[in-house]
């Protein structure tokens, strides 16, 4: 009764929207989940900081999310020579930093020097070491940069996707050893020397980040018109997704990425709210159950835990793969707005996704038969044991506070229960979970997601046996298994050819190996949606990012 009243009150709620001035001011409002941690582009490690300064800085080449090819950015053109071992960039002339200083090759060299400095902890450096060797750069003149690679390295443009820093503004601080402390979030926004499409004007912690158009931005549209077309942007900082949803509905923000359960109500209200709800595509990341194969976790005082044997037994893993009810997960956790995932590379990555993998069908009878044949028989009603008679029991975890993952774990646990396998499920808060995965290695099975990119070599830290994100057995001195050695070899081979279509077969083979050996069991990929005001023009989201964001504008009313 009371529940009904509350529901009626919420459902019947019509917010009287004050007419907002976003269109008149040509200012786009959106929401972000958390405060930035730094404004220093090289020190960024979190998405919030990346989002806060993403429009302030530029890199040499820009990625076109529609073609997934690189297009000129701060470099107007480039060419390979010497069999792919030399790359010459011709920098764009007339580009100015926000303090009036010209952008030159000096800025590029300075940025590279900072990245390679071992005292500066940054995430760009790992992609820029080729077989452990740095790239040698030189500048014959102010507008030419020559990069010499130790060997042919196909992902080089992707590796050089770092933000260029203003040498004239930061060189003194760097020389004084203060680089790690410059451009913290306490820096007044107008002191950030930038050259991107927008400049930051205001940062109010826990409230908003405001930007204005960079009047000197180098890009022009086809008719010589100035870009970006928007006069400003504002990111509201709203930690709660429910609040973000309500703010979008009430007109406080102009774009919103709805969760699966919000898609239908938004579609129903599209006409009234004057919004468009559009499907963007399949999630580019990967969400999977990983099983710990790290001997450091299992061997205690010379005794090996039986779980080590199970998780390295391909028959055991095949049975588990057949017990993942992907259809159920899609319907229950994503309202049907997801697709089964077969490979760790998203099908949106058209060239590098291997379309020939055959999924393990959800079939508990088959799973039980595989287990029986491999010697994992029922030892008492409802309890299955391994060939030595140990009951099959293991721990499952994921990060706490994510309802979808919680539900997926509950589904998996229930199905394994039917097979006679007991799963102790307990989610952990994110920090504790990361500690378990990266340093204590004290975990059995985890449901975890990784983000994905277009360049397959970016997953190097995950795929290579020596990688720190090689989650099932990280940072191996030498490959523990033959197939891990083969993946290492294929990762090397994949960077040798320059043509994507020549590279693709190597990565397809890696996906096939993971699919056969099953150190991880893929689950599902969400189909992502976006909702935006109909007054917005040229708003073209893709799974890889906005297409031509500089062209976005509000229609004149």
């Amino acid at each position, binding site marked *: 009764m009371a529940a009904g009243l509350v529901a009626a009150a919420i459902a019947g709620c019509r917010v009287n929207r004050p007419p907002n001035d976003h269109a008149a001011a040509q200012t786009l409002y959106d929401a972000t989940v958390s405060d930035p941690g730094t404004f220093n582009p090289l020190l960024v490690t979190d998405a919030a900081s990346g989002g806060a300064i993403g429009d302030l800085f530029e890199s040499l080449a820009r990625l076109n999310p529609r073609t997934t090819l690189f297009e000129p950015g701060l470099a107007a053109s480039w060419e390979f020579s010497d069999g792919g071992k030399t790359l010459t960039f011709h920098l764009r002339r007339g580009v100015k930093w926000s303090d009036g200083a010209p952008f030159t090759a000096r800025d590029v060299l300075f940025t590279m020097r900072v990245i390679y400095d071992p005292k500066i902890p940054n995430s760009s450096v790992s992609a820029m070491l080729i077989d452990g060797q740095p790239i040698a750069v030189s500048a014959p003149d102010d507008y030419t940069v020559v990069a010499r690679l130790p060997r042919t390295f196909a992902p080089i443009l992707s590796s050089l996707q770092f933000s260029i820093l203003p040498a004239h503004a930061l060189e003194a601080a760097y020389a004084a050893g203060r680089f790690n402390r410059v451009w913290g979030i306490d820096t007044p926004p107008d002191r950030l020397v930038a050259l991107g499409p927008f400049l930051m004007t205001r940062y109010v912690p826990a409230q908003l980040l405001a930007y204005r158009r960079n009047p000197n931005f180098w890009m022009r549209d086809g008719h010589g018109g100035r870009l970006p077309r928007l006069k400003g942007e504002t990111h509201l900082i709203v930690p709660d997704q429910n609040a973000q949803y309500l703010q979008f509905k009430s007109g406080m923000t102009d774009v919103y990425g709805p969760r699966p359960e919000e898609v239908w109500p938004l579609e129903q209200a599209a006409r009234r709210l004057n919004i468009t709800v559009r499907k963007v595509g399949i999630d580019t990341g990967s969400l999977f159950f990983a099983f710990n194969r790290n001997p450091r976790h299992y061997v205690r005082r010379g005794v090996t835990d039986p779980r080590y044997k199970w998780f390295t037994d391909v028959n055991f893993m095949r049975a588990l793969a057949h017990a993942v009810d992907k259809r*159920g997960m899609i319907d229950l956790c994503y309202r049907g707005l997801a697709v089964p995932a077969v490979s760790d590379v998203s099908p949106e990555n058209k060239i590098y996704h291997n379309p020939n993998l055959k999924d393990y069908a959800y079939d508990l009878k088959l799973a039980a038969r595989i287990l029986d044949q491999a010697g994992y028989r029922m030892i008492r009603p409802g309890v299955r044991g391994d060939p030595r008679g140990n009951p099959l029991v293991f721990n499952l975890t994921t990060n*706490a506070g994510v309802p979808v993952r*919680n539900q997926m774990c*509950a589904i998996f646990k229930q199905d394994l229960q039917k097979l006679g396998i007991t799963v*102790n499920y307990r*989610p952990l808060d994110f920090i504790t979970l990361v500690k378990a995965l990266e340093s204590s290695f004290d975990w059995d099975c985890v449901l975890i997601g990784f983000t994905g990119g277009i360049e397959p070599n970016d997953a190097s830290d995950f795929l290579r046996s020596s990688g720190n994100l090689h989650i099932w057995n990280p940072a191996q001195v030498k490959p523990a298994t033959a197939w891990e050695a083969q993946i290492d070899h294929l990762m090397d081979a994949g960077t040798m050819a320059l043509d994507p279509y020549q590279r693709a077969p190597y990565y397809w083979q890696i996906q096939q190996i993971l699919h056969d050996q099953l150190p991880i069991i893929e689950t599902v990929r969400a189909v992502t949606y976006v909702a935006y005001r109909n007054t917005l023009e040229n708003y073209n989201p893709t799974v890889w990012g906005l297409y031509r964001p500089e062209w976005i504008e509000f229609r004149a009313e």
Partner: protein
Amino acid sequence: MNARAAIAPAAARNPVNGARRGWRAALRDEWRMASLTVKLSALLLLLFYLFAAASPVIAPYNPARQWRELPDCAPMRPHLAPPSEWRRGFIYAFPMRLDNPLARHYVEDHSRRTFVRFFDRGHLFTTAPGAPPFFLMGSEGLGRDLFSRIVYGARVSMCIGLVGVAISFSLGIMVGAFSGMAGGLTDSAIMRVCEIEMSLPSFYFLLALAAVIPSGLGTTATFFMIVAIMAFISWAGFARVIRGMAASVRSAPYVEAARALGGSRRRLLFRHIIPAVMGFAAVSASLSIPGYILGESALSLLGLGIQEPAASWGNLLSQAMDPQTIAYFPWVLAPGLFISATVMAFNFLGDHLRDRFDPANSG
């Protein structure tokens, strides 16, 4: 338990009733004198404890069973069968069919009927093994029967208070009474320890402790860890009050007399001081039970309490966290109603007990 043992003699000695009588008669008198609210509260709590004690019988289904084709299904309307169908059953419902998976919109399938069977296969009511389920209070996001989960959840939510109170109050009474009787340096030392404990920010302390529970523990073990943590946080405040009462009783003539007659410390403590504070303890216990229920709800709401697939009223309610869910599936709020009803019942009962047994009112 202690509490009941204390209530009975106190009631029997009550001046209103006059002579000393058996506890049954005393209980009957108490019942006659209680207001309607108190009677209803007592009955409600009895019912919920019955849920906890007999959950496999009262719950129609296994609380972990997932009907994956029926997520977030609305409560089903029971229909009375016409007399011609009485040999199949008296009550039936129409099975539900997921009409729009995106909206989770259901339609009743009028071509078929699911008969509810009473006293079948050890359940109070259920449906035939292969038949579609009958969701009395709807289903939650994974298609599990909400009513069955609430009934099983009562085990956690109704017991957490009793177990917690048992731990914190036995500790509190022992420490408080001992400290009050001993006096002097011992008393000061113990009380300072209690104050340090009380100054810990309890909820954050709880969060930190809940995070270190080892992951291999089963549901029952986790449950007892949580109760123990909550009890160890709350005993100190109670011990301080008991200590004050004990200190004042210490110099009462009858205690002085017992001491003069050569009564040992232990005898003074157990025969004179603890019985004197028992009445207060019983009242205070009933008033502190809701705190445990709410505490568990808060922890479960944050994902640190009882974990899937085990149910507690707190973790069931955590699904009702977003406005979207409440707007479209309001029945997920049902566990909240059970929590509020229990907390109110305990408060009414505690108020009543205080009015009856507080020495200040016994005039």
